[in-house]
């Protein structure tokens, strides 16, 4: 790939995930300063701050780019703030990438952080009868795990998946995450323990559904020319970013909707939404699933990680359980998935999460993932999906 389409990752940083209960700005500043130190770049050299927003922390969260820029000390750098549900971090990356590739930015900081309430994510307050996110809680009691449960049960019906298969995803990711100092949960679990945890959304148990966490993640990005001029070694690049929307009619029931689109009169698109997210990044990077060394995917639930194996093309439809059982997606296997420990070990800090996926990919490609290192990793993909037609995928290469 020519340097005209790729950008360099100079540095990565995180604030550990947990339930710290402090101001989200603090986590973002820690992550940003860690990324700057990792990059060997001064804060005053950053000419663009691309923030990923949080909607649960008031006005400072809605303008996260400016909030972090001010917290680090206003320098006159340009700013952008993105909200795209779970894909917020990837949209911030996409903003920075576009400006770097256009020659409008030389060194950009991408940063996202969140402080989350205990328990289920709830909609924004008020009496908002025209907001589907408010209405689904009010009329149905449908939480996010409701949708995860529907997908999981559907998977069981279509492919004969078992509760043990789903629990095995958690066992794998807990093993990976146990070695990650930034993970919130760092304890190995057994299938029996997972299945003994309380049922939340049949057939999914508490340990199979990602928690809500506090955390922060940051990247320092630049043009490849800048990275080469500054002797960055090894050179890790972002070769493609996908932030596509669904194509009508989307026949999967998506959060926070009451219904699918109608398949009665309009022809179906060639790919499902999740498939289209990763297809766009493969096409942009000019590679395929056979070229991957690893993947970080959005395991909002254990069962959803299996859906992603198929949507990424790691195996055929209905073959994900077999791929999991073969050990291929465990570190040491052919195509490790969620070597970071995934959402199962982190819990979700929404605006930081898509950035954290890229952080893990960069650490793996640089062979700095102590205790969970994948051998000879050179191509990594991330994938996620969130509410209201948002999803993202990022392709990272060494």
């Amino acid at each position, binding site marked *: 790939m020519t340097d005209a389409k790729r950008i360099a990752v100079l540095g990565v940083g995180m604030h550990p995930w947990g339930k710290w209960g402090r101001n989200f700005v603090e986590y973002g500043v820690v992550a940003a300063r860690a990324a700057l130190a990792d990059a060997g770049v001064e804060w005053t050299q950053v000419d663009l701050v691309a923030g990923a927003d949080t909607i649960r922390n008031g006005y400072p969260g809605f303008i996260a780019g400016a909030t972090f820029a001010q917290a680090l000390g206003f320098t006159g750098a340009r700013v952008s703030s993105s909200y795209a549900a779970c894909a917020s971090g990837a949209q911030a990356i996409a903003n920075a990438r576009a400006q770097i590739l256009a020659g409008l930015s030389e060194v950009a900081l991408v940063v996202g952080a969140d402080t989350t309430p205990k328990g289920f994510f709830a909609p924004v307050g008020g009496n908002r009868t025209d907001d589907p996110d408010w209405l689904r809680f*009010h009329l*149905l009691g449908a939480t996010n795990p409701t949708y995860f449960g529907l997908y999981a049960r559907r998977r069981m019906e279509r492919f004969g998946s078992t509760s043990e298969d789903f629990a095995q995803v958690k066992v794998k990711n807990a093993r990976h995450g146990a070695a990650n100092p930034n993970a919130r949960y760092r304890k190995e679990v057994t299938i029996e323990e997972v299945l003994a945890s309380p049922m939340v959304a049949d057939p999914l148990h508490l340990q199979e559904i990602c928690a809500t966490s506090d955390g922060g993640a940051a990247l320092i990005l630049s043009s490849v020319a800048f990275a080469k001029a500054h002797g960055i070694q090894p050179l890790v690049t972002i070769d493609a970013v996908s932030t596509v929307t669904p194509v009508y009619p989307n026949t999967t029931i998506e959060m926070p909707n009451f219904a699918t689109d109608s398949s009665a009169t*309009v022809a179906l698109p060639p790919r499902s939404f999740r498939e289209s997210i990763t297809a766009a990044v493969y096409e942009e990077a000019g590679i395929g699933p056979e070229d991957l060394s690893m993947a970080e995917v959005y395991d909002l639930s254990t069962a959803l990680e299996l859906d992603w194996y198929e949507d990424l093309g790691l195996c055929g439809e209905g073959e994900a359980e077999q791929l999991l059982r073969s050990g291929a997606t465990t570190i040491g296997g052919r195509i490790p998935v969620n070597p970071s420990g995934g959402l199962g070990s982190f819990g979700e800090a929404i605006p930081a999460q898509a950035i954290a996926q890229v952080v893990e990919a960069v650490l793996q490609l640089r062979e700095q993932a102590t205790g969970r290192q994948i051998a000879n990793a050179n191509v990594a993909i991330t994938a996620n999906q969130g509410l209201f037609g948002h999803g993202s995928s990022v392709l990272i290469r060494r």
Partner: protein
Amino acid sequence: MNGTAAVEGFFDPEAQALLGSRCTGCGTYAFPAKQGLCPNPRCQSETHDVVPLSRRGKVWSYTSASYQPPPPYVPTDPFVPFAIVAVELEAEGLVVLGQAIASVGAEELSVGMEMEVVTDVLFTDDDGPKLVWKFQPVEATR
């Protein structure tokens, strides 16, 4: 059934039917009913007929709300877990969500089971019962 709809325009409590829309241009359906521009990007119509949707359909998938959902859900006291069903309406090409009636838990459901829409009480406040649509198994096919 006494009471008023918990939300206007989603269903007809008397007819026990969901209310969707059908685009006057391309004929595509939507639930809840669409207003304004058709969701089909290749259709420029801005008018939709409000239509009652099929009262019966088959279970596409189902799950349980085993933990009490947060507000604005109005829970029973004490909270009683319930099932949520995704039902496929063949004629409209839609999969729609609804609670199962209180007596039907997730363990009694299966994919492909035939269900029908009924009007039921969502919660009761100072103004009386608030009504919502729910799904119940079609007895004859059980």
